[in-house]
């Protein structure tokens, strides 16, 4: 059995996919890894199609040409939305595109593990499986924070917090596959910070012109909580002229707006857990996802949580690929006959 598994593994391609609201990543068993912003766009009309020269655009390409496109962000709020056939189609296109990036050999079986938001309802998991299964031999869905934990071998007495754009996913690992009550999703995530920042900047600089996309870039380049050295200045047009704006306080306030709900959720989840292990979990909190890159976030959480007991907060080294890498590792370690069972 083991020999068969080894042979099958040799000929197969294993991929781990992290389907995110803001960006999606893929890692394969040949150590290739790619990421793309989770945008899919179709030309609005035949003129746009002719100018763009492609039937469908992805990621930054789509964003750059968004005025000529019907653009979709298929996993907004971390779920596959209902009500539009384009939503399902955009997920399928995104998956197809991600798999094409790793250039699988023709006819090679592809085994995929896809990370989805922790509290994704069954219907969403099913929809994602459906969207992926057109392009792979077999597919498994797991929760994103679980995939991160698997990548890091943090399978016991740890809490993973995956801070994405649409959701913050919390997951307590305790030596078994996390059950529903071990996972929690809140929506005060990256997009929430963007909206807060947009509101704060609009109030402070009513004469300046900027959009949500610009605000998102300001955040991605400058996000922080706590204190930093020196002011954060960005250039924003005022009546057409690029003008320097000091946005230090607004960035700080917007980024700090996610701390309170995070602390509340962490405490609530830990308090419900077996008291014997609570302190171990508290001293093993790991931040993942794009939001983990907010400067000072780990220290801020540690400082607030210290009132409840000794706390250690660390962050993953490679937030862009940690989830996809864990998913790929899981795909590789999944026995062949398990994959066969899924295909039966």
């Amino acid at each position, binding site marked *: 059995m083991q020999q068969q598994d080894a042979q099958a593994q040799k000929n197969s391609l294993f991929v781990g996919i992290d389907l995110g609201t803001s960006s999606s990543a893929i890692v394969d068993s040949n150590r290739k890894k790619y990421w793309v912003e989770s945008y899919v766009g179709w030309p609005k009309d035949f003129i746009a199609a002719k100018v763009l020269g492609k039937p469908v655009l992805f990621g930054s390409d789509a964003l750059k040409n968004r005025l000529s496109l019907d653009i979709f962000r298929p996993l907004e709020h971390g*779920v596959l*939305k*209902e*009500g539009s056939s384009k939503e399902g189609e955009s997920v399928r296109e995104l998956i197809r595109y991600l798999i094409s990036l790793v250039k699988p050999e023709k006819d090679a079986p592809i085994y995929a593990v896809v990370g989805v938001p922790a*509290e994704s*309802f*069954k*219907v969403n*998991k*099913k929809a994602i*499986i459906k969207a992926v299964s057109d392009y792979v031999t077999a597919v*498994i*869905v*797991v929760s994103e924070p679980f995939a991160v934990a*698997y990548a890091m*071998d943090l*399978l*016991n007495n740890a809490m993973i917090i995956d801070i994405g754009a649409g959701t913050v996913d919390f997951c307590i690992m*305790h*030596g*078994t*596959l996390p*059950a*529903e*009550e*071990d996972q*929690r*999703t*809140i*929506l*005060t995530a990256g997009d929430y910070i963007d909206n807060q920042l947009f509101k704060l900047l609009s109030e402070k600089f009513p004469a300046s012109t900027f959009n949500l996309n610009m605000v998102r870039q300001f955040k991605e380049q400058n996000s922080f909580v706590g204190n930093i050295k020196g002011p954060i200045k960005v250039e924003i047009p005022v009546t057409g002229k690029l003008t320097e704006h000091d946005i230090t306080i607004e960035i700080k306030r917007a980024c700090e707006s996610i701390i309170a*709900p995070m602390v*509340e959720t962490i405490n609530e989840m830990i308090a419900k*857990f*077996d008291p014997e292990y609570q302190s171990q979990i508290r001293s093993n909190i790991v931040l993942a996802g794009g939001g983990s890159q907010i400067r000072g976030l780990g220290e801020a959480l540690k400082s607030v949580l210290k009132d409840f007991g000794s706390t250690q907060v660390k962050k993953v080294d490679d937030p862009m690929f940690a989830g996809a890498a864990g998913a790929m590792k*899981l795909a590789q*370690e*999944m*026995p062949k006959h*398990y994959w066969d*069972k*899924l295909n*039966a």
Partner: protein
Amino acid sequence: MNRENYLLAGWTMQRIKNRMLKDILEENLYINGKAKKKPQANRHRARFFKGVALFVALILFSVYKNSDFGDFRTLPALPLAQYMTLPSAQPPKVPLLLKNEEIVANYDEYQPFLSQRGIPLRSLFGLKVRTIVIDPGHGGEDPGTSGQSGTREKDITLDIAKRLLQRLSHYDGYHILLTRSEDETLSLESRIAFANSQNADLYISIHVNNIPNKPYSIIETYYFGPNSDRSALLLAEKENSGTQYTVSDFKVMVQKISNTLKYQEAKVLARSIQKSLFDNIHRSNDNILDYGVKKAPFIVLLGVDMPSILTEVTCLSDREEEKKLNSEVYREDIARYMEEGIIQYLHIKNNPIKSEV
């Protein structure tokens, strides 16, 4: 770490991984519809919570034995089946939280109750529930409350009720009915008469709240009873509007309840639904508050012969909630949360009797 410890740690990690991989397979087979039973939750954790549940139950029981609960509470607020150990009775058909020998009850207290007519005793004893009536609040010319974008309570309650009916219909042995299945005007009396004529065992009325000028939403669930809370009385006044009952009718109805225990059951049902709604909705909305289970004199709860509750599932005054209520996913979720609460009340959560997953 010495070599033995290192090997032991590696061996333990491999065992954990093997178990997880198996669980992942089972979960995915379940999602794909290739396995009927959802994988069991962590046993270690389940044991812990079972222990806590037993401990809490014992505390509650001890509090009950030493307290006076007031006019409406001749029994502690736990499912009656747990307390019923009539000498000749067969073993209850629902699982008991407490063992029989731990249950002490004064049977004389039940005599007035047992002699009552028109009360579905099987339900009150927690033995069987057959017919569940779901009542979508308002309808037709009565739109109920509405949100700032024009979302109407009557449409939301009807949609959630239909979804709940669909979900509960998957369980064998239950007869699920709606008081209305379309946008029609229906008086409270008609709703009550319908539920009574069907010999329903449970009555669940669905509503959506409106609390203007508040930057949050609330979830609350009611069962019939006197209440000094002004806001609850105001809400009851609003929901009771349009009744044709006279004061004497009302008195007769009030007398009817004086010696019955259906309200005990209603309270347990209300708690279960409230808990499921709040616990689940709160996960994705920090801005929603748990207003808990309350007593209020709603006509519709008083008139029906069976345990009955009225739940305000969320608030249309909250823009975000209104937006979410316009998505099918959210309305389905609310129905799912209500289903969970009802099933937990019925003590069949873990029995694999659902015919379709």
